[in-house]
């Protein structure tokens, strides 16, 4: 199972979650990032995610391996969209199964934080006023 992947098209969560189900796991934590209609006080019309695909894949793989190593989890998966997204669309999904909820929550948080901080994906926001911009945050988002 490939734990990290980029998707150029909308993807279904259900089959991904299904793969994490296990008779040994009592806890499952998940996170979803959705495209919001506002950012820093500006009305957002839509956005585009661009990635350096080869490096994003290897960095994503590294993050998932770190999560498996650090936390007492059964399995984990993360999918990040690239391309054009509309308001309300799913941008990123993380799912983690574990025997206990402490590890499930901690690993889920770790994966989304590291993905946002390290994986070479960039967000290009189009604003309602016609402006558009690349987001290059100065501090960890």
């Amino acid at each position, binding site marked *: 199972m490939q734990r990290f992947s980029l998707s150029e098209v909308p993807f279904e969560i259900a089959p991904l979650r299904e793969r994490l189900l296990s008779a040994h796991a009592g806890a499952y934590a998940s996170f979803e990032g959705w495209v919001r209609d506002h950012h820093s006080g500006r009305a957002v019309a839509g956005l585009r995610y661009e990635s350096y695909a080869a*490096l994003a894949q290897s960095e994503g793989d590294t993050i998932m391996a770190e999560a498996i190593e650090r936390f007492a989890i059964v399995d984990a998966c993360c999918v990040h969209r690239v391309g054009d997204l509309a308001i309300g669309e799913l941008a990123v999904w993380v799912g983690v199964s574990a025997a206990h909820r402490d590890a499930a929550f901690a690993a889920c948080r770790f994966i989304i934080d590291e*993905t946002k901080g390290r994986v*070479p*994906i960039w967000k290009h926001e189009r604003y309602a006023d016609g402006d558009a911009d690349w987001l290059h945050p100065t501090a960890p988002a």
Partner: protein
Amino acid sequence: MSRLTVLYFASLRDAAGIASESVEADARDLRGLYESLRARHGFALPVERLRVAVDGAFARWDEAPRAGSEVAFIPPVSGG
């Protein structure tokens, strides 16, 4: 002189107007290579805010440019 390929992403690509280019690198290290390309394309981001990758793996700024390699300058990321 090392001929190599440079990849540009996000705001760097917009500023350069191209996604990649083949360059003759005469800089001593990757930091110097970025500085020369920054001067040419007018990139706003200083080297301190970037990371650099060579052939699909993160690299160090003090590495020497290698002929035939693919160098990518990585602006601050904003996925998620």
